[in-house]
Structures are given as C-alpha cells and as structure tokens.
C-alpha cells in the first residue's frame, strides 16, 4: 500500500530535486543544452563540473552571494519579529470581551485575503515618489517628498512594511487560536494566587502559546526567507540589486538573459540547505526547551 505514495513523491519531489542537484553540478545553460528545434539542431556541449558552482558561489568569486544572504537574513529576522510581535499584540486585544469583536477580527484578516501581488502593486502606487498618497500626506505635513522605492535603505524598509502588512493577520489568527486553547482556569488560578497581569502574561500566556509560536515562527521564517512576490514586484525587476533576496536572485539567473540553469539550481540547492539546517536546529532548540520545563 505504500507504493502509490512512493511513486507520487518520486515524481513530484524526487525527480525535480534530483535533476536540480544534477544541474547544479554541471555548467548547463540555455545555450549549451542540446536540442533540436525544427530545422535547427544544437548539440549538447555542457559538462559535468563537480562542485565548481558551489565553490564559486561560496568562495565569493561569483560575487553576489554573501551580500544577498546578509540582507535575506536581516529581512527574514525583521519581518518575522514584527509579524510575531504585532500579531501577538493584536491577538491579545481581540481575545478580550468587547463589542464588535467579530467585526474587528474580519477587518484585521483582510490583508490576508488580498492576493499578495494585488497588495504589492497597491503599495507600490502609494509609495510612488510623485503621485503616491504617502508623499501627498507628507507634503501636507510640510515634510518633503521621500523617494520610498529609490533609495536602497528606504526601499528595504518599504519592503519590510509591505510584508508585515501582509503577514500579520496569519500570525494574529494563529496566536488567537493558541490563546483560546489556554484553559481559563489557569488564568483564574494565577489571579487567585495574586499574580499581576504581567506575571500572568509571562508565566501563563507565553508558555501556553509555545507550541503554536514554535510552529508559526518556523513557517514564517521559511515563507519570508523565500518571499518572492513582495521583493520582486515592489522593488522591481532590475531597479536595484541590493534589495534582492536569494530567491529573487535565483529567479533572475534562471529567467534573465541566457538562462543559467546550473547557477540557478546551485542557488536553489543552497537555499534549500540553509532552510533545512535552520529547521533542524530550531526544532532541536524547541525540544530542548520543552525538556527543560
């Protein structure tokens, strides 16, 4: 009975992955992969080069890896931190009894319901230096126009802002679910024992949220690390290379100019390895904390 699963996995995951690893060990690109197109026949001339691609990337010869890795890590850390912090804050607010609670929850989930590319394009309009609403407001306040998407630092901040807007609702919903799964008796008991609100938050709420938090932070990290749409659509397809993260760069290798299959596959495998290493260590850390309790 296990056979169908094995077959599906092999076809959907195994083959492409294996092919990608193989390509990353060659110098294959659009020009040297053999093919026959109607009347034109082009022979295969690409070669097996071993770990050469990885060496070039990791030794810095290829020139773009470490800068982009650094920014990708900063980007991921900043986004996930803000996602979690704001999501937690909103979840705590919405977990209290109040009027129109359902309405607020629906409104706060809206950013999540808007497709990421639509949201990104709307933000891009708002950030526009000359005709964007943000600069119009700044002008009203007497502050000059700001080149949101032109300057590289502002560009990065804008991208983080858009991604936070997109990602907070998911965190909020997940944490809200986590909050509701904490038995009310625990809070009551703590209150009876005279714990202050802060103490109740630290010693009851946070530990109660741990299973949910661990999972959403891991997911959020993987998603944000590979958040293609926001970077690609907001900052654009060439205007600046410093704000590119690893995935958008891998995409550029695969789809711009003479398609570099080998280079793109190398980046793909490196991203995969980085995330695997992160996930393994992160799970181990969580497990250790669990044991320590």
């Amino acid at each position, binding site marked *: 009975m296990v056979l169908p699963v094995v077959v599906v996995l092999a076809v959907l995951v195994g083959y492409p992955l294996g092919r990608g690893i193989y390509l990353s060990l060659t110098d294959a690109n659009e020009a040297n992969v053999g093919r026959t197109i109607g009347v034109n026949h082009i022979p295969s001339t690409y070669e097996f080069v071993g770990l050469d691609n990885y060496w070039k990337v990791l030794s810095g010869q290829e020139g773009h890896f470490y800068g982009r890795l650094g920014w990708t890590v900063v980007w991921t850390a900043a986004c996930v931190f803000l996602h979690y912090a704001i999501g937690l804050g909103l979840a705590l607010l919405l977990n209290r009894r109040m009027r129109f609670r359902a309405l607020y929850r629906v409104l706060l989930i809206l950013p999540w319901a808007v497709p990421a590319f639509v949201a990104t394009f709307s933000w891009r309009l708002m950030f526009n230096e000359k005709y964007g609403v943000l600069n119009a407001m700044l002008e009203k306040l007497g502050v000059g126009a700001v080149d949101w998407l032109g300057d590289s630092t502002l560009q990065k901040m804008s991208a983080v802002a858009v991604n936070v807007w997109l990602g907070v609702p998911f965190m909020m919903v997940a944490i809200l679910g986590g909050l509701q799964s904490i038995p009310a008796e625990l809070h009551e008991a703590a209150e009876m024992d005279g714990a202050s609100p802060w103490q109740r938050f630290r010693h009851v709420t946070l530990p109660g949220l741990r299973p949910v938090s661990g999972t959403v932070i891991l*997911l959020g990290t993987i998603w944000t690390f590979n958040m293609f749409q926001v970077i690609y659509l907001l900052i654009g397809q060439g205007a600046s290379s410093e704000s590119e993260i690893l995935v958008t760069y891998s995409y550029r290798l695969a789809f711009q100019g003479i398609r570099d299959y080998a280079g793109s596959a190398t980046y793909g495998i490196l991203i995969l390895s980085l995330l695997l290493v992160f996930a393994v260590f992160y799970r181990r850390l969580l497990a250790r904390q669990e044991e320590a309790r």
Partner: protein
Amino acid sequence: MRRGISVAAVVGVLALTATACGGDGGGGGSDGSKAAKDPGSVSGTVTWWDTSDATNEAPAFKKLVKDFEAKYPKIKVDYVNVPFDQAQQKFKTAASTGKGAPDVLRSDVGWTPGFAQLGYLKDLTGTPALDKTDDFLEGPLKNAAYEGKTYGVPQVTDTLGLLYNKDLFKKAGVDKPPATWQEVKDAAKKVKEKAGADGIGLSPDSYYSLPFLYGEKSDMVDAAAKKITISDAASRKGIETAVDLVKSGAAPKPAGTDGYNALKTDFKNGKLAMLIDGPWATKELFGGEAFKNKDNLGIAAVPAGSTGVAGAPVGGHNLVVYAGSGNFDASYLFTRFMTDAEHQTEISKSIGLLPTRKSAYTPEVLADPVRKSFHEALATAHPRPPIPQGGDLFTVWLQHYTRILTLKEEPQAGLDATAKEWKSALLKDYAVQE
C-alpha cells in the same frame, strides 16, 4: 508570507530548470518553394504572437489578419496578443521546450539576435518571407541580421527624438529647438525663469542613455573589436552630460521607480517643456492637457554631444519565424503580407507607427508631422550592436544608470561596475576599455 512558496519554490525552480531541457520541435524542412511558386495552394494554420498594445494598436493588426485570410482562404491565422513585457520570456520558454511556441512572433529588434543565437529562429535569407530587401531602410534591416544571416523581417521601426512644448518655448522666448545638450541647458533655464515649468525630462531607463553615448561617438560596446566601451572616457563624458543636466536643475531629478511615467505625465500636463521620447509615446501625449492642440507638440532630432554628432538608437519590431514551425510556407506568406509596403502604409496611417520600407513613406504618410519628424530623425539613427546579449546589457546597465541619474552613484563608479558585470556575466571574451 503565508500560502508559502517555501520549499515549493525551491522545487519549482528546480522543476523549471528540469523541464527546459526537452525539446522536439516538429517541423517540415521546406525551403519555401511552394510559397514562392504557388502561394494559392498553401494551406494550414499560422499562430501569430502579436506584442502590440492591446487597446491602441492591436485592432489595426487584427484587421490586417482578416485581410490576409481573405487573400489566402486556405490559411487560418491564430491571433494571440501577448503583452510586450512578457513576450521574450514566454517565447523562450515555449521555444526551448518545443511546446506551444507560435509560428510567427513579433520580436523586439533587441531580442532578435539572441533568439537567433539560441537556434530558435528560422534563417529567412532567400526565402519568400523576405521580399525586395533593397526596399527596407538600412537600420532596421541591420537590426534583423545576426552573423550574416537575416532572421527577421522588419515590421515597424522607431527612434528617439526631442519632443517639446511650443507654448512653453514661446513664453520663455526660446525660438528654435535646442540642437546640443548645452542649448538644452540654456533653454531649460529660460523656461524655468519665464514659463515656470521644468526644463527637460530624462528617463532613468537605460535605453534613454544611448543618445548621450552616441553624442560622444561612443556606444555600450564595440562589437567588431570585442570591447566593452561603456566605461571609457568618451562614454563617461556623455553620461556626465546627463548628470550635469540633473545637477544644474535643467532636468528634474527623476524618480527611481516609475520615473519614466512620471515624466510623461508632467510633460503632457504642461509642467515640463522637453522630453526625450519615441513615436510610441505620442498617442498618449495627445491625450494630455498641453497637447489638446496637436500643433503644440514640436519634434526635433535628439541633441548632439560635444562632438557635434547627434544619434538616437533604432528600435522597432521584426516578424520572426520559429524554427520549429510546422508550416514554413504559410508563415512566410503571412510574414511577407504583414510587412509589405502597402500594409505598412495602412498601419502607419491608422495607428501612426513608422514603416520600415522606403516605399511605404508615401506623401500621405509623411503628411503627418509626427511621422515626418521621426522619419527625418531615422536618417541619422544608430543601429544597435548585433550581438545576442544586446537586450540583456540594458538590464544590468539600468540598475546603475538609474542610480547615476538620481545622483546616488558617481558616474565613473557606476560605469565601471556595469562594465565589470557585463564582462563577468554576459561578455566573457570582451576586453574592457579603460
């Protein structure tokens, strides 16, 4: 985040790289003799990917397609409008896998050598598709060639010119369009003082940097000598001229994102006196406040650099035939029909595009001042280097040119970085000219 592309993205990239290696284009090895000798007997279907603007231009082309079908009733044309900015990637994906590629594509002149080098295109030299080659303008025909063979039939051409607002010039007391960048600077100053508008709009898009390079008799690369010339002294001088226009206030500092559109908006609303742009922009400009009276738009050749030479790039589109097309005969007939003088005249009259055939410039076509001015500008226009990397050079250069023009990077540093990136990624066997 959310609905993530996490591991799926990695696998996706890998899967894409994997699928791009197949390739078995069908296709008969016809030499097109049937199309030449007995066109009436040719039958079948031709799929055409048109990259023209779907609202402004496509209806005119669709009408031509109908006429073609009426003339050759045995041939059916499958018309597909593909957005210009996606067409290059889409065609490459389809062509390399042999699945879903069109028989005929409207290809930007910058893409044509690249497609030819990768083996995606049928050599059209001597086929019935390429009829009366003497009649083509020289620039567009050169842009369709790669290594001595002709892979495309020029369909439309264009170049850049200096567009100006005559009213603003009159208010400022500028009596003739500036012919050099120095005169542009002087005119801009007068416009600012007396007419209260900005001087000249310089698009931060790298394509628009070419007149500055050509004005110093330089270019991005010297393809014949295999040299990268963007960082040499002459090129730098050209780019510094552009920067100087921004620094001196003659040109407003362009926005780093969507800068070109912002300039067009300002120009058509009368807030900007001059703009470097091509004939494709005129339709939109005439929709603006400042050019309700069409006569108010003046068009001159791009200004000259310090060498006294003025040059603008030749742009435009070719019709190319996919090497894996199953029906060359019909594709040739279709290509020839769409690019013959009579139909080019028709297209020019209905949507204003510039023909590529000399005989298509009839008195009627030239009666329109926009077409007449750009036709004159074409005489001194500059073909682009016929190298497969031509289109990709712009992508790298764009990043630096935008930064240079928005004063975030020194010209020398940006030019050196561009040359270095070209050498390491695109032009490995070229020398870098200091």
